[in-house]
Structure formats: C-alpha cells, structure tokens
C-alpha cells in the first residue's frame, strides 16, 4: 500500500462533500494507476506496511485534525451504514456548504421546487452517502494491510530513511517513487504472498441488510428493527469517540478478508499456487496492466459521445471541468456536486418562461404533444457546439403538463459510472424515446382536464370514507418508506458484498475491469434511493419527544435512540431532532401528515429515474456476463462459484446473490407503480398531492413500459 493511497484517501475525504460519488470508481482506478507507478521507496526496504503506518503518523497535523473533525462530525461513516437521512445532522460547516450548493442545485427541475421543503429538510446530498462510507473501508483496509505487512516482514518500525522520505513534500515523493523499479519488488511480493492466498472470503454483510433479511417479511413491518442494530449504532457511536475503528464494521472485516497485497500487480490467483503458473501470471499481469491503462481512452470516447455531456456548451466552470473531474483524481477545485452542476444553468430558467433552453437542437418528434394541452419546450436554442459531435440522433423533448415539466428529457444526466464495455447510445436513446412516447400517450389518454374539478365532489364523500382513506394513505406512505429502506439496504448490500470485493479483485488483476459494468448503475440507484429517503424521512420519522409518549411498546429502542441523539447533540451541538437514523425508526414511525407530498417528491426526481431504465437496458448483458462467469471453466469462474457457495453457506447471506441484485431495481419500478396506484385511489381529489401522485404514476408506468421494451428484442 503506498503512501499515495493514504494521501488520496485524505484528499478524497476532505472533498467528501464536494466530490461526487461517481468519481469513486474512476478515482480508484486513477489512483491505482498512479500507485503502480509510484510504489517504490518502500520496495527497497520491504517495509511497506510499517511505512504507510508511519506515513499516517507523519501526516501534517492539520490533515489529521481535519480527519478527526470529520470523524466527529460524521461518526456513522466509520461504522454502521446508516441511510442518508441520518446525516442531516452533520456539522455546521457541512451545512453551510450544503446551503451554498443548494442555490446552484436546482433540485433537478425548476418546477416543483418548493424551497421551504428543501430548506426544511435539506436532503443531505446522497452522493456523500457513498463517499462517506468509504473511509470506513479504507481505514479498515489500511490498518489491516499494515498489520499484515508488519507481520510478514517482522519490521516494526520504519527505517529512518523511509521516515525521511515520508516527510518530503507530496509531489516530490510522487516523483521519486515513480522512478523506482518495481519488478524486483513484484518478485519478492509474490513469493511472500504466495503461500497464504485464500479464496476471497465474503465480507460481512452490512448489518442493516442482515437484519432486514432475517426479519423475513416486511409485512411485519410494524415490528421495530432488530434491537441489535440500535445497539450497533450506539456502540459504534461510542467507538468513534476514541477514533478507533469500530468492532462492528459493516464493511469487510479484516478477519474474513483475504490479505490485501500492498502491490496489486504481484498478487496471485489462488488457483495457481505453483511456480509455473507464476510465470503465466506474470504475463497475464502485463496484459491486464495494459488493459487497465487502455480502458481510459475508451471511457473518454464514450463520454464524448454521450449526449448529455457533449451537447452542452460550457455552461460554467463546473461543467467544463466535468470530464476532468471524472477521470482524474479529485482536484481541489471540485465543483460542489457534479451531477447537479451539469444541469444547473439549464434548470435555473423557470418553467413559466417559455424561453427555456434546451441544449439539444431537436426537431420535435412529438409535435402532436403541442396540439394537446401539453406544452413542449417551445423554443430551442441552437448552439453551434452541438453540431460537431455524433449527437445528431434526436433526443426527446421535455414533456410538460399544465406548464409543469414531468420529465425533462433534455436534462437527463449521463451515467455517473460509464460502462466500460462498448455500448451504443442508440439503444438507450431508443428506449428513452419509448419512455417519452408512452408518457405522452398516457397523458393524452388521461388528460388532467379529465380530473373532475374537486370542490363539489368532495362534499359528497362521507367523512367516514375520508377518514378511512386517510388511514390507508398513511399506511401506504409508510409502506412506501419501509420498502424503500429495504431497497436501499439491498443496494447497499450489493455494494458491500459484491461491488467492493470485485473492485479489490480488480485491483489485484484477478478480474477484468469490464466486470464492474455490472455495477455501473449502482451508485446512481443508491443516489436515487437515498434522496428519496431523505425527502421522506423527516415526515415519517417521529421527533423523539412525541414518540416517547405515544409508543410504550418500543421503549427500549426509544431509549437507545434517545441516548444516541443525546450523544450526538452533545458532540456536535446539533439539534437532536434531525438525526434519527431511518432504520431505527420503524418503531418510531409516525403517521405522516398531509404535508408529505410523495407524488411531488417523485415528480421532482423524475429525471433520476433514467437510471432504472439503464438497469433494464443493461440487464441482459449483465445476466449473460454472470452466467458466463459461472459456467466457464477458468480459474476465475471457479473463484466466482466458490464465493457464491460461501455466501450460500452463511445463513444470513444465503438469500441474495448478484443475480438478485440485478432484478431488484427493475422490480422496484413496478412496485412504485402499485403503491402509487393505491395511493391515488385513496387520495381525495382535492388533496394537494393528488395531481402529483397521478403524474408520478404516469411517469412510472411509462417508464415500466420502456423497461419492458428494453427487455424484449
């Protein structure tokens, strides 16, 4: 493990708030490449682990302070994965940063941005959810690596020379390290690692998911979440005080993890422990090294041809650095939130303003939309920069209803994690077209004008029915929330159990970089889900006082939670009402008031739904990839199957494998449809959310149609 890792880590951590999570992959690859070049000084002395340990010690004190500060602010990140809304409590500096961002953050689209809603519950930027969990992994791994290497070499403290080098300026270190020869180092490393490479043990699943899976059915969702979780969080909270890694790390624990070799290239496949295979491994190492370096241009090429990126003129500094940001390690001038900034200018124009800019010049494919009460964006700006790239395939226009944008097709964001395999945009665009068509068609079929004007009808409804509807509605809203939490934790589980081990394997050259494609949608999905949870949480989660009075049954959980909050409040001086970790809250879920406009929230986020479409688009390919992986006879697939079997053997993880993860987002959309349909049925017409629920339902439905079509072919 090189010093650069650590530096990267700290830099990354520093930028936690500002660096988008979608950089994660690219960053790790970038740093990985760097690392390859820069492993070095250590190689002479074989004191890698100790050295990096020492490096941590020798870090400038302000970095450590910052680190400690962050740790204090966000203790969760070092342990139990708590869904995003629990992070509303992050410290003041975070908040200010966030509020700045909010100005530039148009919340996807101009309409429906109810500023009070946003201000009231600032949805903590979901990107940080992912980023935030990272340090925990890193910490775990680094420590683990350190121990490992120290044991290996029996060197307990770094030599003075190493220490001296570590005190060099960073750049200097980089330069020098790069110049070192790594072949001899590789050889040594290989010999050392060789005898003790086990098949990668599956990491511990995140407790959230474990409990939710063991709990069995969400239909007992009145049940509070398992108490141990509360305890975990609590324990964790305490632990983070002493800045020690939590014993309840949700991320792979060192004990179960294969020792991570400090130098990726030197790692052997366990299936090839003999010497002759060593040499073959050598060559494969070279090959894959080449490929891992060469995939970058591919990605870039793809990026350039991506409609949403290249079509845009440089709107701001942020978007002009967009590409750079993705492919390089985090730069200090990282824009606050990449995915937002890319649309910021576009969305700053209010919908009432008909001069809404669309950065694609497109013949309206759906002119018919205009003839109805739908308004398509009425004027298109034509930027010369558009025409140069391969972007001439028509993209759909935004779909409007009653002056409000349903889905801003022109502002859909590109994948945050681009696919590494070769794909054509064409298919995606085609499916977007299907989505668009279906949306327009449904809107025509059920025009909003067909909704009877409400006031008169309402009188007719007996109060009893209204009351019953209200109860049902509350039930549905709660169900929506709990299933969303489940969804989130399943995604998170996939991330921890599959994606991250795979990433690590890739770093060790065991697998092809293209394998990561399976997870290319994961961060977007997590992003979507956590944003949704953030938006919903404050309405559904009890304030601590209220729930104490109302809920005798769950006093234990309450108590833990209250302690937790007190603890938090003490630590950060933050107000205690916003920190309830959503997963603790089943017991504390309150009846949502009518202020919760689920439909509106969903409509606001409609642009992010494109991720689900991409899931569906990728599904077949991913599926094929996986079945190839499990059927082929190579040593890699042997590992794959072994891993799979290991998961099966463990009770708590036996129910969920990658294949299942692939299905779940697809299924989630149809479930949204069901829930919304029910919700609509039980919402009185005069309800402020009615129109939004209806829209959200239409959006989901048309999306499902498109996803359905994507499966066919």
């Amino acid at each position, binding site marked *: 493990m090189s010093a650069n890792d650590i530096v990267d880590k700290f830099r990354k951590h520093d930028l936690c708030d500002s660096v988008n999570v979608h950089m994660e992959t690219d960053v790790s690859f970038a740093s990985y490449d760097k690392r390859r070049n820069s492993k070095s000084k250590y190689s002479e002395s074989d004191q890698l682990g100790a050295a990096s340990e020492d490096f941590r010690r020798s870090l400038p004190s302000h970095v450590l302070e910052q680190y400690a500060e962050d740790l204090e602010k966000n203790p969760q990140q070092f342990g139990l994965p708590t869904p995003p809304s629990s992070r509303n409590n992050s410290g003041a500096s975070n908040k200010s940063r966030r509020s700045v961002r909010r100005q530039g953050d148009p919340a996807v689209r101009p309409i429906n941005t109810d500023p009070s809603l946003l201000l009231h519950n600032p949805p903590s930027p979901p990107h940080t959810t992912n980023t935030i969990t990272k340090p925990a992994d890193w910490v775990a791994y680094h420590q683990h690596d350190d121990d490992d290497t120290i044991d290996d070499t029996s060197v307990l403290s770094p030599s003075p020379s190493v220490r001296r080098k570590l005190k060099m300026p960073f750049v200097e270190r980089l330069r020098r390290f790069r110049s070192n020869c790594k072949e001899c180092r590789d050889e040594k490393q290989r010999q050392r690692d060789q005898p003790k490479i086990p098949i990668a043990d599956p990491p511990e699943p995140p407790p959230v998911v474990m409990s939710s899976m063991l709990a069995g059915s969400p239909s007992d969702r009145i049940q509070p979440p398992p108490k141990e979780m509360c305890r975990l969080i609590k324990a964790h909270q305490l632990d983070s005080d002493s800045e020690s890694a939590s014993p309840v790390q949700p991320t792979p624990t060192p004990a179960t993890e294969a020792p991570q070799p400090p130098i990726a290239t030197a790692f052997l496949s366990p299936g090839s422990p003999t010497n002759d295979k060593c040499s073959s491994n050598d060559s494969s190492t070279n090959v894959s090294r080449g490929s891992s370096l060469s995939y970058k241009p591919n990605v870039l090429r793809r990026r350039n041809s991506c409609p949403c990126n290249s079509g845009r003129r440089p709107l701001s500094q942020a978007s002009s650095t967009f590409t750079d940001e993705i492919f390089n390690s985090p730069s200090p001038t990282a824009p606050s939130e990449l995915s937002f900034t890319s649309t910021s200018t576009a969305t700053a124009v209010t919908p009432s303003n008909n001069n809404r800019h669309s950065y694609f010049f497109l013949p309206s494919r759906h002119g018919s939309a205009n003839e109805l009460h739908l308004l398509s964006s009425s004027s298109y700006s034509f930027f010369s920069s558009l025409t140069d790239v391969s972007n001439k395939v028509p993209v759909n226009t935004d779909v409007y209803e009653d002056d409000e944008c349903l889905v801003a097709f022109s502002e859909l964001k590109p994948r945050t994690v681009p696919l590494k395999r070769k794909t054509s945009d064409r298919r995606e665009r085609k499916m977007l077209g299907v989505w668009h068509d279906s949306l327009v068609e449904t809107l025509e079929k059920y025009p909003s004008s067909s909704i009877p004007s409400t006031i008169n009808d309402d009188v007719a409804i007996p109060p009893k029915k209204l009351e019953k509807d209200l109860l049902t509605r509350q039930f549905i809203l709660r*169900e929506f929330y709990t299933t969303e939490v489940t969804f989130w934790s399943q995604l998170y589980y996939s991330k921890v159990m599959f994606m991250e081990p795979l990433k690590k394997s890739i770093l060790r050259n065991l697998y092809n970089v293209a394998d990561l494609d399976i997870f290319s949608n994961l961060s977007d999905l997590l992003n979507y889900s956590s944003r949704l949870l953030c938006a919903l949480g404050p309405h559904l989660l009890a304030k601590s006082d209220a729930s104490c009075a109302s809920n005798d049954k769950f006093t234990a959980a309450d108590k833990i939670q209250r302690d937790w909050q007190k603890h938090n409040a003490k630590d950060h001086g933050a107000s205690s009402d916003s920190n309830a970790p959503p997963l603790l809250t089943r017991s504390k879920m309150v009846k949502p008031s009518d202020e919760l406009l689920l439909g509106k929230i969903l409509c606001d986020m409609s642009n992010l739904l494109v991720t689900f479409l991409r899931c569906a688009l990728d599904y077949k390919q991913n599926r094929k990839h996986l079945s190839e992986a499990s059927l082929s006879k190579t040593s890699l697939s042997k590992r794959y199957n072994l891993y799979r079997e290991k998961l099966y053997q463990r009770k708590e993880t036996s129910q969920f494998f990658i294949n299942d993860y692939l299905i779940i987002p697809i299924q989630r959309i149809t479930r949204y449809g069901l829930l919304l349909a*029910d919700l609509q049925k039980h919402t009185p017409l005069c309800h402020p959310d009615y129109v939004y629920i209806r829209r959200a339902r239409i959006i989901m439905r048309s999306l499902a149609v498109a996803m359905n079509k994507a*499966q066919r072919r």
Partner: protein
Amino acid sequence: MRDSGVGKTSLMNQYVNKKFSSAYKATIGADFLTKEVMVDDKLVTMQIWDTAGQERFQSLGVAFYRGADCCVLVYDVNNNKSYESLGQWHDEFLVQASPRDPDNFPFVVLGNKVDVDESKRMQVSQKRAMAFCQAKGNIPYFETSAKEAINVEQAFQTIAKNALQQETDVELYSDFNDPIRIDNDHSNKDFNGCAC
C-alpha cells in the same frame, strides 16, 4: 373479490408469515421471501419471488423466470378470465425461461380464493382446472385460500418437493439453494385496474 389480482402476494405472505392482511389488501410486500422447509428430511431454503405489479409488462418477467426451479401459476377461481390466461402464462414462461427440459419443468397451479362465498363462487370449476393441468402434463393442482390458509402449506410443500426433484436432476448446488420463483397468473388485463 379483490380487484387487485389473484392473490399472489397474499398467498406468499400467508405461507411465509402466516398472516393475511385483510385490513389493507393491496400490500406490496417484499420482492422475495425466503422460507426454510423440510423436504424428505432435508432442509431446503426456498426463495419465493413475487412478481406483483408486472403482469402488464410481460418481458419484465423474464428477469424472474430465468433460473427458476419451479413456477407457480395462480388464478382466481372466481374469475374466469384469470383462468383462461393460465395457458398463456404457462407458455410464456416456457418461452422466456427456456428451461433445459421444458416438458418436465415443474409447474404448480393454484386456484386461489376458494373461501369466497359459494353463491358468488366457482366460475371456474375444479373439473376444468384439473383438465387443464392434465393437458399440460399432470401439473399438481391445489385450491387454496390465502385468507383462510386452506391448502397453502400443502401447496408450497409440493412446490418445494417438485423443485427439489428438478434440482437433484441438475445436481448443481444441491443442498444450499433452491430458489423458487412464484410467478403468477393475473386477471386484470384492462388498463384501469389496479396493477397488483
């Protein structure tokens, strides 16, 4: 009669959780539930997938069909339409899932909601259903009620058993996993109907 489908989710819930929620019928439930069953003295973990909500999107089901060890078709005994589409779903499944041995792939047909009052009931007689099952190659048939928990246990036991037979033929990960997907027939073809 619930307009929210034939009761797949309810059946699943009844089986796994021994619960029937009549207070709120259109519960969405989980994507999948798991249950451990003893079949021939072997402990098998059954993974039951619920396809609720996807009836109108036939191709989405593909995601579930593949890799299934057993397919459970559910129809509503009070709803003729739901019975009539059984055959269609049966064929659809075989096409989509393309099991290695389509002739012997285990299906189970469940006629749900037999608890409904006699007078309104039995649009689909047991005879007709039996005939269908015979024609499709001796598919086991059960009349169930998720509400009253009639026959649910037996039906799923059979499902597990048949799936396991299939499994032992294939000899894959024999004892560890035995995913069974419940994918169901559905009656609501008209657009306005609630999807579940």
